[in-house]
């Protein structure tokens, strides 16, 4: 009897170990607000969506769009009509056939005002989509059609040079309206109604910090034979020290948010790896107020910053000094060329003390005399505070100017910055696409993201020219022109280019991290 019990216990234990060992554990950090492709606008949500849904195209291991649900496509001569041909026998995770009209439903849902998608405007390149959104056109007028089950046609409102990158964006995905129309809001919050079509499917989801999501391999995925992992466990451990403790204990295979005090050591030892991330950290200057309405003052403040010291002593995660607004690793006029290399360095890595002092004197404040009281606002966070103090010190030392530091809670700060109730404010941007325009467009007059009040018709024109140009070389050159104008006016002071550091266990291979921040598990496997 005892022996039987003993054997049973052993069997259960072996099974428990086996089931643990065959899953890959990733700390997603936060519990996503939603994983409904049309409603998500956060990276944590996107990281789930890219692993459970599959669009017409997907980002490959080289971060370029590659065929996914669409096997091939055709563009009309004028570039205004795109026809996508779907693969044979595509299926949803529940085994139902996946048709072109469901792509139409998904795209339409993204731009439907009833849906309330935060990214609806990303779909406005589709013909009549904006009019439909604003209630002046009907859904039938939107330039989407599915002549048969395997053909999906998109007509454009204006040319989109990044069409395939857009198609890989986790918003343009097919929808199961038979399920969604029954529970338009809750369908994506429950595993039994969230039917997806990607490499994995959602099995369970426990909400809140400390909760988790279990994804299992989708046997109906068209590329299922190349998906190696059977089970993924996405945990939501918010506290970075707790997450690191779990990693050290061998319970987490892949994690970002590494404790900042340990990061330099882990990078040095080679335990953590640092990747370029498509983002720039910078300061906003409020150009509508004195004294930062004067470009000389803005340039003086920008040149007084020693970017090398900032990345070596403050951020310490392998970041690079920002010599322009567009970060590294963004393609230029050809895939082989980097936009930043082509554009050259607009700003020095070290402070240009003489020039900064000279400019401030020219603006009427020699040695900072008579300079009005100004403040630097940032959102409360230990790293931001260190950065703020470093900047304050540099401005004091180089320019002789006192800058007051003010911190605010995150959402309060965002409102303050949007209202432009500041002199200098902390800012940063992570790009949505591999394209310089993705960050330059922040400074277009009247853009929702323009927090500085900057407006230069020449800059706007260069950006408009770029948007309407489908020749790559010309288009990129328009953006170089735009960046040049921007770096003369300096409504923003670029400080450093982002990196993201991750810890990965040795037993797992094939996890792909895109500089856009997405983590793909479809090629991940457990090395034995």
């Amino acid at each position, binding site marked *: 009897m005892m022996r039987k019990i003993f054997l049973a216990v052993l069997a259960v234990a072996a099974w428990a170990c086996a089931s643990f060992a065959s899953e890959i554990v990733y700390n997603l950090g936060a519990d996503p607000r939603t994983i409904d492709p049309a409603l998500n*606008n956060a990276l944590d949500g996107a990281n789930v969506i890219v692993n459970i849904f599959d669009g017409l195209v997907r980002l490959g291991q080289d971060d370029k769009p590659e065929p996914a649900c669409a096997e091939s496509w055709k563009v009309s001569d004028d570039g205004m009509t795109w026809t996508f041909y779907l693969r044979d026998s595509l299926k949803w995770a529940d085994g139902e056939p996946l048709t072109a009209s469901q792509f139409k439903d998904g795209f339409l849902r993204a731009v439907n005002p009833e849906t309330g998608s935060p990214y609806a405007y990303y779909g406005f390149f589709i013909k009549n989509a904006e009019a439909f959104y604003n209630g002046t056109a009907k859904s039938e007028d939107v330039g989407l059609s599915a002549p048969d089950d395997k053909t999906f046609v998109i007509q454009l409102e204006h040319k989109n040079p990044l069409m395939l990158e857009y198609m890989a964006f986790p918003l343009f995905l097919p929808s199961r309206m038979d399920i969604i129309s029954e529970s338009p809001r809750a369908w994506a919050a429950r595993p039994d109604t969230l039917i997806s079509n990607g490499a994995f499917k959602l099995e369970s989801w426990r909400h809140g910090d400390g909760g*988790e999501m279990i994804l299992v391999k989708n046997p109906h995925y068209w590329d299922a034979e190349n998906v190696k992992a059977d089970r993924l466990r996405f945990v939501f451990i918010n*506290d970075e020290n707790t997450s690191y403790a779990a990693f050290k204990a061998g319970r987490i295979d892949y994690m970002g948010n590494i404790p900042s005090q340990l990061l330099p050591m882990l990078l040095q030892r080679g335990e953590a790896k640092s990747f370029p991330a498509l983002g720039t950290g910078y300061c906003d200057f409020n150009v509508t107020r004195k004294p930062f309405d004067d470009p000389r003052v803005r340039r003086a403040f920008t040149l007084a910053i020693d970017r090398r010291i900032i990345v070596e002593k403050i951020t310490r995660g392998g970041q690079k000094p920002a010599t322009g607004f567009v970060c590294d690793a963004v393609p230029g006029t050809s895939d082989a060329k980097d936009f930043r290399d082509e554009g050259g360095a607009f700003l020095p890595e070290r402070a240009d003390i003489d020039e900064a002092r000279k400019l401030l004197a020219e603006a009427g404040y020699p040695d900072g005399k008579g300079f009005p009281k100004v403040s630097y606002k940032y959102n409360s966070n230990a790293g931001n505070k260190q950065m703020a103090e470093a900047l304050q010190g540099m401005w004091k030392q180089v320019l002789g100017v006192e800058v007051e530091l003010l911190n605010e809670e995150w959402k309060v700060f965002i409102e303050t910055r949007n209202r432009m109730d500041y002199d200098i404010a902390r800012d940063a941007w992570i790009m949505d696409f591999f394209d310089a325009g993705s960050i330059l467009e922040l400074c277009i007059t009247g853009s929702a993201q323009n927090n500085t009040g900057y407006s230069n018709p020449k800059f706007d024109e260069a950006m408009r020219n770029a948007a309407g140009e489908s020749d790559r070389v010309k288009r990129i050159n328009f953006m170089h022109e735009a960046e040049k104008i921007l770096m003369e006016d300096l409504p923003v002071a670029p400080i450093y280019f982002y990196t993201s550091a991750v810890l990965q266990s040795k037993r797992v291979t094939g996890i792909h991290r895109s500089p856009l921040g997405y983590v793909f598990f479809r090629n991940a496997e457990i090395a034995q």
Partner: protein
Amino acid sequence: MMHMIPGGPFTDEKAIPSFVLEKMNDRYGLNDPLHTQYFRYLFNVLHMDLGPSYRYEGLSVNELIAQNFPVSAMVGGIALVLALLVGIPTGIISALKRGHWQDRLAMILATLGVTVPSFVIAALFVYVFAWRLGWVTVGFWEGTSTAILPAITLAGYPAAFISRLVRSGMLEVLGQDYIRTARAKGLRERSVVYVHALKNAIIPVITYLGPLTAGILTGSFVVEQVFGVPGLGTFFVTSITNRDYTTIMGVTIFYSALLVGFNLLADVCLAIADPRIKLR
């Protein structure tokens, strides 16, 4: 009041164009006048509906509480039992051995328990048991086994507090006439202490148990964050930073209901324990 804090549930670094924001607010009725929103909410709450969460798309606050309260309640329940099991005996011992080393030791521990904040204890536990010894993993919720460390952390303060309550209660009671009478009757010391004295000395503990139970069962933000416990305590704080209005209100109402309930229960228990207190 919540609406006066700058920022809304959809305020985000990637500013959403105003026309889109308008439609998103519409969907949740956030564009209606405040009094309309208020009465609609009151009406729903009376029907036990705490509304949809703004932070978790497609989930209601009822579901959030239903999902996360049991976890907090389990950790809290263990902590409560621990606090009582440790607090009452140490209180009795230190009262009986007043002035001896046992008393001093117990009071030093109790002072530490009351004064050392839970995040220090929690961090210490993580360092010692998870990093150094590797006995437990933190960050993963696997039921009872992972509930122990957070429960011990949570139990620290109430155990110390109960111990002091019992000690002072015992000291007061032991000096009273009826104890002398009991002793004079020739009752055994054990019976004097545990039957006669403890019954009265425990009364302040019962009073304290009401709010304590409500508080400890709904979880603690700090302890849940550090140990990665998917409980309710986290929502008291994160719902505010997320401007998740319905969740702020929902968990507050839930906590208040528990508080009122357990206070009532404590009062009933008091009436049973102490005949001088009458239920009317």
